C-alpha cells in the first residue's frame, strides 16, 4: 500500500477557497432579484426611519412644532412655517411625511424588539422541551398548543387591554402573543436533529447533554428560526398597527403608523384620502418587503427545495 500522506488524490479534494456556510447562503440569497430588491427596500425604510430627525421638516411629537392651522392640507401644500408638505397633513396639522417616518421608527422598534425577545424566549422554551422530554415537554407543548389555538391578534388585544397603552406594553403583549410560534418551531426542528447521527457521535465522545443541545443541535435549528423570525417580525409590525388602529395600542401623542391610519379614516369619505393612504402604503411596503425576504430565505434555507 502506498503511503497515504503523499497520495496526490487526497490533497486535491479541498477547494482552494474555504467557503463558509454563510458565504454559500449569501451567494444563493442574492441570486433572486425580487428578494434582493425587497431587502433593499426594507433597508431604505430602516435608514429613513433611523435618520428621521435629520431629514424631516417637523418633529410630529413636539406639540410646539405642530400647528392646527396646517390641519388636513392636501399633498404639496405649503405649511404655516414655510416648508412644503409633500404628502399633506393630518387632522392635527402634522406633516404626514414626517409623521410617517417617525411612525415607522415606532413600528420597526416594536416589531424588531418583540420579534427578537419572542425569538429568544421561544427558542429557550422550545429547547428546554426538546432537552427535557417526558412530562416537562408535554406540559410545555400543551401550553403552546393552547396559546396557538387563539388568534395572535386576540391574545395581543387582551394583553394591551389589561396592560394599558405604551411602547413597552405593546412589545410585552406582542412577545406574549408570538413566543409560542418560535417554541414550536425550535422544538420540532430540535426533535428532528436529535435523531441524527452526529448527535449520537457527540454522545459517544462523552460530550454533556447540555452542550449537545446548545452547541450541536441549536446551530442546526437556526435556518427555520430565521425564516419564522422574519415572518413573525412582519406580522408583529402589522399587529401593532392593528392594535393602534383600534385605539388600544399607542397613544395619539406618539402616532405610530396604525394611529395615523386611524386618524385619517374619518376623513376618507370627505375625499381627504392622503391621511390614511400614505401611512397605509408605508406599512404595506414595510410588511411586504420583509415577507418577500422571509419567503426567499425559506427557499434558500430549506434543503428540500434545493435545485
Amino acid at each position, binding site marked *: 500500500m502506498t503511503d497515504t500522506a503523499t497520495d496526490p488524490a*487526497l490533497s486535491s479534494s479541498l477547494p482552494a477557497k474555504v467557503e463558509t456556510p454563510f458565504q454559500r447562503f449569501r451567494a444563493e440569497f442574492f441570486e433572486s432579484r425580487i428578494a434582493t430588491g425587497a431587502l433593499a427596500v426594507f433597508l431604505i425604510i430602516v435608514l429613513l426611519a433611523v435618520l428621521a430627525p435629520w431629514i424631516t421638516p417637523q418633529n410630529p411629537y413636539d406639540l410646539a412644532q405642530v400647528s392646527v392651522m396646517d390641519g388636513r392640507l392636501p399633498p404639496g401644500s405649503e405649511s404655516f412655517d414655510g416648508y412644503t408638505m409633500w404628502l399633506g397633513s393630518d387632522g392635527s396639522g402634522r406633516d404626514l411625511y414626517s409623521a410617517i417616518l417617525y411612525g415607522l421608527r415606532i413600528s420597526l422598534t416594536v416589531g424588531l424588539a418583540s420579534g427578537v425577545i419572542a425569538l429568544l424566549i421561544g427558542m429557550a422554551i422550545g429547547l428546554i422541551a426538546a432537552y427535557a422530554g417526558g412530562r416537562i415537554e408535554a406540559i410545555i407543548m400543551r401550553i403552546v398548543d393552547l396559546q396557538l389555538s387563539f388568534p395572535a391578534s386576540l391574545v395581543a388585544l387582551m394583553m394591551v387591554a389589561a396592560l394599558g397603552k405604551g411602547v413597552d406594553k405593546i412589545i410585552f403583549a406582542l412577545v406574549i402573543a408570538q413566543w409560542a410560534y418560535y417554541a414550536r418551531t425550535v422544538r420540532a426542528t430540535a426533535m428532528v436533529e436529535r435523531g441524527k447521527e*452526529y448527535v*449520537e457521535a457527540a454522545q*459517544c*465522545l*462523552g*460530550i454533556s447533554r447540555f*452542550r449537545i443541545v446548545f452547541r450541536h443541535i441549536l*446551530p*442546526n435549528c437556526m435556518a427555520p428560526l430565521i425564516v419564522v423570525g422574519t415572518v413573525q417580525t412582519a406580522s408583529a409590525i402589522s399587529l401593532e398597527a392593528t392594535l393602534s388602529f383600534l385605539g388600544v395600542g399607542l397613544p395619539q401623542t406618539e402616532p405610530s403608523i396604525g394611529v395615523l391610519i386611524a386618524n385619517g379614516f374619518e376623513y376618507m369619505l370627505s375625499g381627504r384620502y392622503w391621511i390614511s393612504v400614505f401611512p397605509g402604503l408605508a406599512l404595506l411596503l414595510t410588511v411586504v418587503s420583509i415577507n418577500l425576504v422571509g419567503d426567499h430565505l425559506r427557499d434558500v434555507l430549506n434543503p428540500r427545495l434545493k435545485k
Partner: protein
Amino acid sequence: MSAVLDVRGLKTHFFTHAGVVKAVDGVDFTVSKGEIMGLVGESGSGKSITGFSILGLIDPPGRIVEGSIKFNGEEIANAKEDRLQSLRGNRISMIFQDPMMTLNPVLRVDTQMIEAILAHESVSKHAAWERSRDALGLVGIPSPEERLRAYPHQLSGGMRQRVAIATAFLNKPDLIIADEPTTALDVTIQAQIIHEAQKLTKQTGTAMIWITHDLAVVAGLAERISVMYAGRIVEQGGIDDVIDRPLHPYTAGLLGSVPTANRRGKRLFQIEGMTPNMLALPDGCAFGPRCHARTEACGRRPSIEDIDGRSLRCFNPQQAAESVI
C-alpha cells in the same frame, strides 16, 4: 495480555408494543490490549446493539437486562450516566458507519475535535488544537492545519472518516468500537482506512472491536472473530481457524457465498431463507430453519461450547463445514 473488555452473558432487550425483541441475547467475548476483534453478522443480528450496550447508549424501550460488561476490571453494565459519560470518547471511543452523517455540518472540524478533548481534560485550547492537528497527521491527512479550518461538507467521504478515526484516537482510548466504518466508502478508500486503523492500534495498543458484515474486511484485519446470529454468538475463535475451517454452518455459509479465485466457475453457496423475525425466533437453534445440515437435535437450543480452542453453538459442527467448502 490483559483483558481490556470482558463481556459475559450480555442481554439487551427492547420492550416494544409488539413484544420483547431480544436484540442481544447472551453474548460473551473478551478483547485484550492491542487486539482487533471482528464482530460479524448480518443486519439485525445484534452486533451494533452490542456496541451501544458497551457504551451505555441504549435508549428506551431498550435496556440491558442481564450480564456483565467489565472494562479494565470495572463493571460498567448499567453504570451511572456520569461515569459512562466520562468513559465515552475518553477511554472507549466509537467510529460510525456513515462519515457524511457523524460530523456536525455547522461546526468546523477543529471545533469538533477540540471539544472532544476538552470534554475530558482541562488543557488549553491551543494544546487541544495541536493535539487535533497531530492526530489528523497520524491518519494520513495532508496539510492538517487547513483541514482543521474546514467544514465537514468540504471534505470527501474518506477524508471525513479519517477525521472521525482521528477524533476517536484523540484521547488515546483503551478501546475503540468501530461500527462498519468502511461500509459507506469505496473499495480503495476502504483499504486505506483499514490500513490506518491497523497501524494506529499497533502504535497505541488500543483494543478494537470491528463490527462489520464483510468477512473479507475482517479476514485481513482482525486477530479474532465472533460471528453473531439472531442476538447470539454462534462461533468465535482465531481468525485463521474460523476463516479456513469454519465449524458452524452459518459461518460456513457466509464464507461459501464469497466468490474466490480458486472456486472459479462453480456455483456460489447460498444460505436459504431470510433473516428471522426477532419477535418470533424458532424454539430450537435460531439458525435451524435455514441450516443445510440440520438434524432432529436442532429442535433443541444449542449452548455455546469450546471445541479446539474456539467457541461454538452447534450440534453437528464438522459435517456442516465440509458440505459447502
